[in-house]
């Protein structure tokens, strides 16, 4: 987008909330992000997608109070829509202006101008390519992955297969479809157990295409497996079952940038190897319950660049993370999670988060060289603007050859 004059700040519409189970986490990520933006360069515009799916904007969104008073507090905000066509310089107010006989403007609702969109949505409809699709149709500049990489990143099953093709270790798995389970749960369970690598021992059950830790469980008995599948099917149509790695260390790495992609320092989310539940992941601050609100992933007890982790595993994680990021064609900041099986020393790719909580800024502030959140955001936004310029330079061939002839 061309700037009308020197010195005007770039208007960044941060989109958050959304119709997903990670709605609340998204609010936290967004507020943190907005606070960290360089206000000399950027003018943040908060855009909140309520649980109804409607979009709202307004200065009140910068305060926590409005979220605690939902849905009544929405009436103080302006409802907007993003039209899925190019040529609209921003967000369009949803409601027509109130007509009064003394007002003479007939120019229509005033568009709220936006230079670049910053999706800060986690989970369904935000991290999975849906909003990216809308933004593409609007011809807008936006940060982070485009449709394909985002969608692929959300689908654990497909993503693992792509990664395995590259020669990177992944755990064996079985996928269960809700329809099949509803019709014959016992059969579904047996087929899981017939999968190579899952024949015996405890298993790990998770939704195929959701982030966070909702619906994730470790199971040891048949009854637990069946109950865990039923639990996943409350949230997703497919369940992924993997073997439970008992002596587990989770290793997460963040990656950003294009050609070259860079890896951050690694972290291990928990020292003693238990996997995190939703509460543990988001409602803790150093192990205690946060008194008011939470800091999201940034508030979790974590070991960043831990000494007790050997250098080989760290390097392996970082280099594989970069390969996976490039393989997917990702953009913006992603966080790639690995599982280290301490009993064998093997490092498995677990999942990629193309829009990680708090944008994993806490990993970049500890990297070498360190990168502050403000700078990180600046890089991401500039990348988005450059990327849009590239896309605009592609020709679009419209001609009515087939119809004419």
């Amino acid at each position, binding site marked *: 987008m061309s700037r009308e004059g020197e010195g005007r700040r770039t208007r960044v519409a941060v989109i958050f909330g959304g119709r997903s189970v990670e709605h609340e986490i998204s609010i936290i990520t967004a507020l943190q992000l907005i606070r960290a933006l360089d206000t000399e360069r950027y003018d943040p515009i908060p855009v909140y997608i309520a649980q109804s799916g409607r979009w709202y904007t307004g200065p009140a969104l910068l305060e926590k109070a409005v979220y605690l008073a939902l849905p009544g507090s929405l009436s103080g905000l302006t409802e907007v829509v993003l039209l899925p066509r190019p040529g609209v310089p921003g967000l369009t107010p949803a409601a027509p202006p109130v007509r009064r006989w003394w007002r003479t403007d007939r120019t229509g609702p005033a568009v709220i101008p936006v230079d670049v969109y910053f999706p800060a949505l986690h989970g369904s409809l935000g991290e999975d390519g849906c909003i990216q699709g809308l933004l593409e149709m609007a011809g807008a500049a936006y940060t982070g992955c485009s449709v394909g990489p985002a969608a692929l990143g959300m689908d654990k099953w497909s993503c693992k297969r792509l990664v395995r093709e590259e020669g990177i270790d992944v755990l064996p798995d079985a996928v269960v479809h809700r329809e099949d389970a509803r019709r*014959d*749960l016992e059969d579904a369970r047996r087929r899981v157990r017939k999968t190579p690598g899952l024949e015996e021992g405890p298993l790990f059950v998770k939704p195929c295409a959701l982030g966070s830790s909702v619906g994730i469980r470790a199971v040891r008995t048949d009854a637990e497996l*069946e*109950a865990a599948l039923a639990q996943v099917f*409350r949230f997703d149509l497919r369940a992924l079952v993997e073997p439970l790695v008992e002596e587990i260390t989770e290793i997460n790495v963040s990656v950003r940038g294009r050609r070259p992609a860079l890896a951050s320092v690694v972290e291990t989310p928990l020292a003693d190897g238990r996997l995190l539940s939703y509460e543990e992941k988001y409602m803790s601050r150093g192990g205690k319950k946060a008194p008011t609100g939470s800091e999201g992933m940034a508030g979790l007890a974590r070991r960043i660049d831990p000494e007790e982790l050997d250098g080989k595993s760290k390097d392996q994680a970082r280099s594989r993370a970069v390969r996976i990021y490039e393989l997917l064609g990702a953009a913006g900041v992603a966080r790639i999670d690995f599982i280290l099986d301490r009993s064998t020393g093997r490092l498995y790719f677990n999942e990629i988060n193309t829009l990680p909580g708090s944008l994993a800024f806490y990993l970049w502030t500890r990297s070498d060289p360190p990168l502050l959140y403000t700078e990180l955001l600046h890089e991401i936004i500039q990348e988005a603007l450059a990327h849009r310029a590239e896309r605009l330079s592609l020709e679009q061939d419209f001609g009515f050859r087939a119809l004419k002839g």
Partner: protein
Amino acid sequence: MALLSLLLITLGGLLFFHRRLLRYFRFFQQEEYDSVRFMAWLRANRALDRRGSAVALVAGGLSLWVRSDWASVLALAGALALVILAVREEDPRKTGKIRLNLTPRARRIQRVAFLLYGAALLPAALLCHWLLGVRAPVGLWAIHLVLVQAPPLTLMGAAALLAPGEKRRQEAFRQDARRILTELAPFVIGITGSYGKTSTKGILRELLQQGLGPTFCPPRSINTVMGITRQIRENLRREHRWAVIEMGAYRRGSIQRLCALTPPRAAIVTTVGIMHLERFGDPEDVYQAKSELPQALPPEGILVLNGDNPGTRRMAREHPKGTTLLFGLDPALGDLDCWISDARTTPDGTVFSLHWRGATYPVTTRLLGRAALANLLAAFTMACALGAEPRYLVAVMANLEPESNRLELVREGEHRVLRDGYNSNPAGFEAALEVLAELPANRRILVTPGMIELGDRQAEENRRMAGLAAQVCDRILLVGETNRAAWLEGLDQAGYPEDQRLVLDHRDEALHRVGGEARPEDLILIENDLPDVYEARPSF
């Protein structure tokens, strides 16, 4: 000067009226704006004004004796007294278990009530001014003696005046809901019963939603025509294949009206018991009111009934349908289609074997108590009858969480608390005591105010429950006055040692005591903890 006095008295009276109106309004709203029920409430609670009358009497009486120029001072004092009383009245919009919700309809009633009051007050004040001259304040105080009793009357009057308009409005909404329901045509399952309706509804909603498909279900305990009308208009969607509707049998005809709105093709009757007897009065009425639900089913309908309850067994005999199924925990009363065996209570929940259509399923659930198990069986039976796979339902049941305050087991530090605060009925109380007995514990402690809403059987049932509690509990804390006598009698009859009893006035005191005295691995049952049970009779 007399005019000033009149003005002061009028203003004081208005403010007093405003705050009093809100207080009475809370109870009027609870009685669903039904004047007959409201008057019954007024009588039962002897809810006449005393304080305002006292002010009027004193101020008016003194005004008779003093010189007229002192009358204005008295008027000011009296008006101030009214203002102080008014300001000190509690605000039912903010306090209390069931708060006053000023809906658009409530506001309409409020406005008309004010108009009625004004229509009585202003002419009266003017007449006093013209006829009584300098003695006018005395007259106005006398009139206020009557007017302080006005709030409930103006409420009923306003409701009556607005009734035709409201009726039209409600009728339009009802037609709209009817139209929506007919067009979207989900399969409707009705649930009624003396207790267990809401819990069964909640479980059935989960079983159907997870086992079969999108299910519409009004939240909480919404079970009246008005409530369900609104839910349908606001929340029923095309995708909903199933609709689970709780139906409250407030009197004969209630369920018939509900079935006219949402004609059911399947029904569950959980129990025919003795809850809310003060509404019905006669157990036969209770039975007949609930029978309206099976009667509303088409001949090929599915009817699921509680095999442990004589009332519902009778319904199975008198109103059989194409598919009639009985569930229960105790095969003693006769054949059952769905029953359980080998039930064990553990701190993680209940483990049992479920028998259905020749198969046996091992079930683990976090729910506790036979009442909860009965609800589970009812929902399971219905879901299976509708085509869900039993095994999948068993997996769903393993994930169900108990509702808040319905036999919810929580750990508090080193001891555990069984929260069963939601309105207790005798069967629920017994079930809670059973769970208390079965769970491992160091000492078993009961905190309760007893049971309410049992009509003239209340004392008897509380005595009986005291006897049962005496066999299980190491310590019993009795809260409040309502059922104190009955419980003490029951405990005496059971020979329960005095030093194991504790009698307290207030709930907070009791909870504080019990928390402070608790030893590791004690198990405390908090039964029927509703604040309104503890709410003193309101005084005006």
